[in-house]
């Protein structure tokens, strides 16, 4: 950081980075812009970038047809619920693996991760039948259970890699002072682990929010989250680009904004042990 960088080089870096970043971001930007156009402007040739009459009619049309807030609320409950339950189950496990590693620890961890490789379609019908029999179809509880389970391995692993970086000396000092296991976790570890837990929480909310296989197949109306909301716009009905864009913007905006505001926390823990 001490090195002085010539402004000319900095300018070149800036130009290149901005160009690439804008290209990567463009599809999202274009979708948001299109959502404010009329259907006719949306397919205008040549495309109009900014100079059009901005309208909210697509948002009204989408809201009128599918109750956005119900879907939004379902998404919130399901992604938060599954992440929090996942954390409650995973924190003790990750703690134990990180600080009391046994011979099998690594294998258990890898086995957990390998359960994520189960192709979901392979077990859809059996799970559907089980859900039917337990009355879990189209309930938020059912989705919370499934999403907790599919994200649990990732949660355990992220926490494990994070906990491992906490110096053991501190724990030993706490033990010397006679701290029991529980108080060790609550008073010593947890405060140190908060950043790691926070970023795990964020990442899993994102994964759960965007999960589109189970949420689509196990819900009908009551528990349908935003992934189901967007599914009803997936084929054209006459001119539909603007409406599709509005629905897309509504579906991704909450998580996108959350992601932007919390990106520092998210990035800090998003290493999966990649950094030593």
């Amino acid at each position, binding site marked *: 950081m001490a090195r002085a960088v010539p402004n000319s080089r900095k300018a070149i870096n800036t130009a290149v980075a901005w160009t690439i970043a804008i290209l990567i971001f463009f599809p999202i930007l274009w979708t948001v812009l299109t959502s404010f156009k009329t259907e006719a402007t949306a397919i205008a040739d040549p495309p109009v970038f900014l100079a059009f009459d901005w309208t909210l009619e697509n948002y009204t049309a989408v809201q009128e047809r599918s109750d956005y807030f119900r879907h939004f609320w379902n998404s919130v409950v399901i992604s938060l619920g599954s992440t929090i339950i996942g954390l409650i189950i995973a924190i003790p496990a990750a703690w134990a693996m990180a600080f009391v590693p046994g011979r099998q620890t690594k294998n258990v961890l890898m086995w957990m991760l390998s359960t994520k490789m189960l192709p979901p379609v392979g077990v859809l019908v059996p799970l559907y039948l089980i859900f039917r029999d337990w009355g879990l179809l189209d309930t938020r509880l059912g989705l919370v259970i499934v999403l907790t389970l599919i994200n649990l391995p990732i949660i355990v692993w992220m926490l494990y890699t994070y906990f491992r970086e906490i110096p053991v000396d501190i724990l030993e000092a706490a033990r010397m002072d006679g701290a029991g296991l529980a108080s060790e976790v609550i008073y010593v570890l947890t405060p140190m682990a908060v950043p790691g837990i926070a970023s795990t929480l964020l990442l899993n909310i994102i994964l759960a929010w965007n999960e589109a296989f189970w949420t689509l197949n196990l819900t009908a109306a009551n528990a349908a989250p935003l992934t189901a909301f967007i599914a009803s716009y997936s084929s054209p009905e*006459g001119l539909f680009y603007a409406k599709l864009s509005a629905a897309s913007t509504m579906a991704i905006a909450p998580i996108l904004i959350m992601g932007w505001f919390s990106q520092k926390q998210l990035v800090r823990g998003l290493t999966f042990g990649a950094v030593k």
Partner: protein
Amino acid sequence: MKTLTRALLGASALCTVSLAAQAQSDDPVTLTIATVNNGDMVRMQGLTGAFTEAHPNITLQWVTLEENELRRRVTTDIATGSGQFDVLTIGNYEVPIWGKQDWLAPLDELPEGYDTDDLLPSIRQALTVDDTLYALPFYGESAMVMYRTDLVEEAGVTIPDQPTWSDIMTAAEAMTNEAEQTYGICLRGKPGWGENMAFLTAMANSYGARWFDMDWRPQFDSPEWQSATNDYLTMLNEYGPPGAAANGFNENLSLFQQGRCGIWIDATVAASFVTDPDESTVAENVGFAQFPNKEGVDNHGNWLWSWNLAIPASSDSVDAAKEFVAWATSKEYTEIVAEEQGWRAAPPGTRTSLYENQEYIDAAPFAEMTLTSMEAADTQNSSVQEVPYTGGQFVAIPEFQGIGTAVGQAISAALAGQSTAEQALSQAQSITEREMQRAGYMD
């Protein structure tokens, strides 16, 4: 593992019994309705206020999905008896098959004034199993030619009321102007038994082809299938829009409304959307003609389809659902649509009375051709050759969904240029043979 499975299955039986309580008729009821995101259904969803006003104890919850997605969800639900939905939107392909399996609630004791005899006979017959109706038709359709009168004139060609395929191909060629992104003909290319195979099967019918001979042997190796498929591919490759292999009904509707297509041969129900000045840029210039036939073959494809509302036997609010289904397919509903959005928007193809209504005939230039096409469709004898099955643009056996979709994939691969027509057909032949053998139709 076996014990586990048994335990789970046992638990299932218990739950089914304990949950089988019925709702009383005046208690508040929520109906979950699964429907397709086609224009008429979206309109119905918009008009539900009229229903809930008259039935304050009933709340409606909509699950509106794209056709394939809907079919998958609804089929899984009903086949496993899950009862997530109270009203299903299904085609006349499913109704008889599901009715026979007792998956649907019989629709007798309809409200007074429903007038079942007013339903078009061919449609009504398709929804009846052993003299019992298992679904009520929401709208019905055959297929016909829709074309741009202005482009036809400009190109100096004509399309007669009963065109042959060579009339269509000549006109399509003359209207194609790729520089201006005007394409002579738009047809379904998206794989699926209800998408490209619906069209191609009807087209093959009009070439004198059939899916199976009387021993259930698939017939894709016949000269009729070959010439139908060749012409289909030629039309789309030479005069069709780019990306035709991904276009289904809705995609083509959108293209036609934007003025990109000279001719579009598809479901008659599209007519009310392409002539709607609010949605279509070419509303003033649309002409209609009957589904083409090949010279010398007296067959106009025999396309007959209806989207129907049915009630799964597993629903726990059958009575309320019945009220809704009867309302949405009634004359009264048609009048509500007409009042709010004009007669042109009335759901077509289900009731004789609609076609005797002068107001409708005046407002809908396509009414006559729609009725002609629907009356011409014979689903009992879909080909000029003898067939062991019923159904026009589909074969009414449960295996057809799977087979039709796999064959549709093979055809779309040929359309995308990955294989030749010959390769696609021989692939279709072997796929179908394989499935029919497995299903025990042939050995």
